[in-house]
């Protein structure tokens, strides 16, 4: 969907509060937001759709603050990412830094253990589950890899979405893609 048409719809929503215009925006961008959240939630379709709905409601309430410094889709994905983090914090009592350490420790163990997928070869590669593969990554690496490899976001856009600086994003991408590629090879893909 063109940037010009997004801006036209956004202007209508801001000026008149048009539900029709906002509905058009939702229809144009729902696939990207829902797919992103499905990857972050490890394929939980119902949870992802609930979070996606929350994302669009927050976008509706805050659309007056959209400054066009980034694209509308990047802005939506940023909201979606923070909706996901809020949900993750609700479900986990641990502070973020401690949780990250646990996840890092877990991912190192997962890297050492090979998941049985019925042997190598072509059959194994086709049955390789996307979410299972992504689950081998730490949350921030998974986020960065999904945003780049699935949603085609640039490093700058990923930095805007995750509110990290670009060098940190590059670092997460390098590590995440390496870990994912190693996981795929160890489980017979490629």
């Amino acid at each position: 969907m063109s940037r010009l048409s997004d801006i036209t719809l956004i202007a209508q929503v801001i000026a008149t509060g048009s539900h029709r215009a906002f509905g058009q925006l939702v229809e144009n961008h729902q696939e990207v937001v829902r797919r992103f959240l499905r990857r972050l939630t490890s394929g939980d379709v119902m949870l992802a759709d609930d979070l996606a709905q929350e994302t669009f409601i927050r976008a509706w309430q805050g659309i007056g603050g959209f400054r066009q410094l980034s694209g509308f889709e990047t802005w939506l994905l940023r909201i979606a990412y923070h909706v996901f983090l809020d949900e993750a914090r609700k479900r986990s009592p641990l502070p973020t830094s401690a949780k990250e350490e646990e996840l890092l420790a877990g991912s190192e163990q997962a890297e050492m253990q090979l998941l049985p997928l019925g042997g190598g070869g072509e059959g194994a590669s086709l049955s390789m589950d996307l979410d299972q593969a992504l689950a081998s990554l730490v949350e921030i690496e998974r986020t960065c890899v999904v945003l780049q490899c699935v949603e085609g976001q640039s490093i700058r856009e990923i930095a805007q979405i995750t509110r990290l600086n670009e060098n940190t994003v590059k670092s997460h991408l390098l590590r995440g893609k390496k870990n994912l590629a190693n996981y795929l090879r160890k489980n017979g893909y490629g």
Partner: protein
Amino acid sequence: MKEPYNIKDDEALLKSFFSEHAEHIADNGFTERVVWALPQREADWLTANLHLRYWSIGLNVAAVIGGFILLFSLDFFGAMRTFLIPAAERLLVTLMTLDWDALLVRTMLFIHHLPEVLPSPLQLSAIVLASLILLPLCIQKIVKEV
């Protein structure tokens, strides 16, 4: 000796993997559910103050109309009967009986002698000053009579 890390191999592998797992998600009523659940949005200043603009325009129009009514209401219908209707009748008769050739000549003569009949700057200033003094008095008189 450990082989150097070749990122291109990983890029190609991941590209192939994600390409195979590309996912299309149909709307299936998602948009409808979102729009249905939208809360009342706090109106921004423009939307919240549109009614003030309408009120402002309405009051201005009412003031203009009220001003005209005020000026003529003293004896609006009387003024119509005494001045406007006879004046319109006279104008119509004049136009029907007008000597257009004579009017053209008179107009050309007027323009030719215009510099002689225009007031001097001093006279003009006096006329403007007198108008500024007299106009409020006239309005005051009208208001009192109302």
